[in-house]
């Protein structure tokens, strides 16, 4: 099973690619709402993106209140 660091990196790469940001421009501790500038509909889009990529389900209430990539990766890791 991939480590948390590997999952975090995968999330960062995926977000950068989807939201058209330069590779390496995102960091684990970044607030993704601020960094990606996403609204509520784009938040749902990101949820689908992550679920489809990792082949998991992330119930909204499990990621509610999460705003940094590292914690998001932890939630993903717990579902893998």
């Amino acid at each position, binding site marked *: 099973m991939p480590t948390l660091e590997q999952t975090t990196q995968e999330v960062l790469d995926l977000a950068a690619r989807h939201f058209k940001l330069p590779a390496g421009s995102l960091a684990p501790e970044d607030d993704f*709402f601020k960094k990606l500038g*996403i*609204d*509520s*509909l784009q*938040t*749902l*889009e990101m*949820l*689908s*993106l992550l*679920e*489809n990529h990792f082949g998991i*389900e992330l*119930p*909204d*209430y499990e990621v*509610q209140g999460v705003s940094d990539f590292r914690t998001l990766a932890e939630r993903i890791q717990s579902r893998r």
Partner: protein
Amino acid sequence: MKSFTGKALRWDWREGVLELTLDFPPANEIGTVMLGELEQFVAAAKHLAPETAACVIASAQKSGFCAGANLRELYEQSAQLNEKARAEGVRDFLERIHAVLNWLDEAPFVTVGAVHGVCFGGGLELALVCDVLIADKMARFAFPELRLGLIPGFGGIPRLKRDLGNGFVRDLLLTGRSVNATRAQAVGLVAQLAGEGEALRIARATAAQVTKFDAVTRTAAKKFIKPVPREELRREIEIFCELFSRPAVLAALKKFVEDKGPMPYQP
């Protein structure tokens, strides 16, 4: 009327296929404007039914298929009315939207929904009347009504119960969480998955396939396999109206309308 363009939607009939396109920013919310035009659509569809084999229902809004009831309008109108007028207004709206959705549910032609993006609440209830749902792989489905102190009011629970396993229905309803298209297909809500941006094309191809079958057989098959759960739909209206009469609902609507967070559909 074979084609129409209104404020919230448009439709076009050609070669036996009706295409209804919701196009009301930001996310095709179902309020008085959308409802009025859906009623116009149903009146036209009844007239066109004898020469119609299929109907595609889709959205031209980038945000998705439909985000549900127009809660801002519901709150703003409700806040101005006394308790009695508020209850009457909501009941009237529910009766009207049920009439529209019940007719579409058992329409004598095949309905094919092309879903992308957000398909929440009343939007999911509209999708649930479709005979065949084609979903973009980025589509999301949810019944977030409990956060408002309400249950879905446009026929959602009876139709979901008719079509799917009760375990999934409870998960969706009682947690208010959203599910992706893959999950929706796994439980049988979605018939076919589409790549990003491909749902409408696939829905049109599906509708074209439907036109090849005999009309009498098609109608009989649909009637046999998809009964309208009328008794439960009536009970849903009563439960919704009872819940809506509580002051907590108005407070929850206000909170939702004012919420600027990333997950306003979550409590």
